């Protein structure tokens, strides 16, 4: 298999530092309380959004099958989408890697002599680190979703895919605004903060010559780009500037327009407990002759970045069913405690642990699939029924599978393999296959248990070392049975 991740994403290094990141963030009490509060809020909201368990279950099954059908037809739907978009005057571009996507976007902007970009929320553009790429080319790139704006001012990355700035509380935001916004009147009142942000960003919408957005659903049948949002910044970015560039992953395409309502309903309810978002924006064309506003040019960039690798494996393919609602994060005990930045990847939490290995390779992400208690909460809340815990187990296997073993399923296969660990399990397997070896090992373990080391690396940093018992379970049961027999005989 030829891998095309030629140059590493900047997230590869931060993902590799996972353990250090966790140690850092677990010790930050303010951060932990911010996440705890936000996750409790989002879990509550979701819970109250469904009329009955029955409705939720029927919808989940329906939406799972919709996404599976669309994936089964993916290449054909992409071609149909392209045809219909081009017929509507929307240009379609394809990119295998993040660099290709960035090059395409930079060139489209240069062609229009654009210098100022406003961005709607797009996780795929985070994936490509588009802001960095454009800024290096002297194009100002401003995030306009309130959460993304805060994160950008703080020179950070989103810590949640739906609520990018949940790691910050209002005091921290007030300080950030005070440091960055000229003429800011200090306040920790959320309304006041939002109004001041609004003023700054409205000026930018008015002046920007390029708008960049993501896509929630791309409808093949009609050639329509759908955006889900509450703030109106998505509408601003896709309506006011002269040039609109949308970027999305190839898995976002759906076949029919009628596939959209059930998916939309599950998306907003799973994400924030809303029956629907404030705005559902459906774009099918650039400005037509006679129309007074809207961009003169609309472009769509379709990005692969590892998705086709997941697509090639029946089990891992389910990863692509994801509609990016964030419910798995909200319900994840690990995410709630370590927060979104510790993962070091664009997509944090359970979904991040599933998709990042395809984007960055298992070399950089080998720790991620192990950062799960396998409690199953993510799988239970997933609106499209992705068996997340099962896929995490599978990724753990891929990361320790010998490199030589065919077929090679993914980039970085075997990156987490340690010869010591492999040897231990080999010996363990041999011992458990032979009754004689097993009995012998038990004899040794019970007698030489005092030789067990007191320190066992990471395990004993917060736990006491395990110590084998003086007698085996078999021995104890046997002794008990003999005792019972004896007392029976005595009585008899």
């Amino acid at each position, binding site marked *: 298999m030829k891998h095309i991740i030629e140059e590493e994403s900047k997230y590869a290094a931060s993902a590799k530092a996972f353990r250090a990141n966790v140690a850092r963030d677990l010790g930050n009490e303010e951060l932990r309380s911010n996440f705890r509060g936000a996750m409790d809020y989002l879990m509550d909201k979701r819970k109250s959004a469904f009329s009955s368990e029955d409705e939720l279950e029927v919808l989940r099954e329906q939406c799972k099958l919709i996404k599976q059908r669309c994936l089964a037809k993916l290449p054909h739907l992409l071609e149909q989408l392209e045809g219909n978009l081009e017929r509507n005057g929307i240009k379609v571009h394809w990119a295998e890697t993040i660099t290709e996507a960035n090059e395409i976007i930079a060139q489209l902007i240069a062609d229009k002599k654009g210098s100022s970009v406003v961005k709607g929320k797009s996780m795929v553009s985070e994936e490509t680190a588009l802001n960095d790429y454009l800024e290096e080319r002297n194009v100002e790139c401003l995030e306009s979703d309130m959460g993304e704006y805060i994160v950008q001012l703080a020179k950070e990355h989103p810590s949640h895919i739906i609520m990018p700035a949940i790691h910050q509380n209002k005091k921290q935001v007030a300080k950030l605004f005070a440091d960055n916004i000229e003429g800011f009147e200090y306040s920790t009142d959320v309304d006041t903060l939002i109004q001041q942000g609004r003023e700054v960003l409205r000026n930018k919408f008015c002046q920007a010559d390029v708008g960049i957005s993501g896509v929630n659903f791309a409808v093949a049948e009609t050639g329509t780009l759908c955006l889900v949002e509450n703030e109106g*910044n998505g509408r601003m970015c896709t309506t006011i500037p002269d040039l609109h560039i949308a970027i999305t992953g190839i898995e976002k395409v759906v076949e029919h327009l009628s596939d959209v309502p059930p998916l939309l309903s599950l998306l907003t309810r799973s994400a924030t407990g809303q029956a629907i978002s404030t705005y559902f*924006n459906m774009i099918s064309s650039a400005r037509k002759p006679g129309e007074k506003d809207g961009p003169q040019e609309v472009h769509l960039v379709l990005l692969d970045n590892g998705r086709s690798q997941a697509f090639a494996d029946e089990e891992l393919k389910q990863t692509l069913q994801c509609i990016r609602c964030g419910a798995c994060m909200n319900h994840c005990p690990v995410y709630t405690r370590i927060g979104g930045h510790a993962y070091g990847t664009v997509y944090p939490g359970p979904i991040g642990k599933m998709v990042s290995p395809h984007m960055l390779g298992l070399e950089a992400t080998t720790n991620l699939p192990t950062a799960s208690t396998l409690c199953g909460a993510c799988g239970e809340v997933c609106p499209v029924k992705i068996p997340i815990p099962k896929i995490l187990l599978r990724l753990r296997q891929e990361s320790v599978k010998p490199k030589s073993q065919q077929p090679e399923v993914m980039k970085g296969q075997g990156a987490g393999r340690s010869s010591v660990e492999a040897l231990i399990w080999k010996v363990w397997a041999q011992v458990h296959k032979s009754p004689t070896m097993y009995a012998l090992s038990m004899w040794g373990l019970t007698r030489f248990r005092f030789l067990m080391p007191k320190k066992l690396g990471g395990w004993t940093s917060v736990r006491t070392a395990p110590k084998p018992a003086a007698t085996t379970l078999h021995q104890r049961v046997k002794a008990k049975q003999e005792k019972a027999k004896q007392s029976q005989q005595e009585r008899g």
Partner: protein
Amino acid sequence: MTNTKADIKAVSKTARGNILAKLKAEVSGADYDKLPEEVPFNYPEFSREENLAQFISELEKNHAQVIKTTKANMASVISEQLKALNITKLLYGENDEHSEVIAALDSKIDLQTYDFSIDNNKERLFNECPAALSSSRCSIAATGSIVLWPDENEPRSLSLVPPVHFVIVDANELYADFTSLIKAQQWQDKLPTNVVLVSGPSKTADIQQTLAYGAHGPKALIVLLINI
């Protein structure tokens, strides 16, 4: 910058070929007639009154103001609302189908027609238009959503940029849910440049999960509900 237009065209072409080839190799021979049946949830049928009540309640939950009125009274309702908000200007669409409403508005209101291209008028649109009036195509009861169908007369930004948005909603054009609406009107056959479902004023909970209204779009959504 080192790339040229030709380069990105070539990049895209190669990428397209590679991506589609990889995906097609995986689905070759797939039998699409054998896909499992997708069963939707059977929502109960509601009466017109129940749908209307649901529509209003969802909108109000989302901080929209719903005013039940008639076509004859609408002008005075809008005039009063503008007065209460201390706004003296109103932007509306050219060739407005509600021209008699516009004509009957309080004469003190400075009427602005959206008869200009946005290209050289962005400053004006953003800074000099405090309120707008638009029509709607239809609406959705289940989620309290209003369907805007912008066109040459009522541009997309009419309902987006001015901080107060008045929207006329006809109760006779209320559908139970999004699915039944798309089906009834066969949207898949012809969609315009842009369709927007609006379910309240612009909002955000991005700072400490605290709801704030008027993030970027209208701070107030005033629904003028007629033909109840």
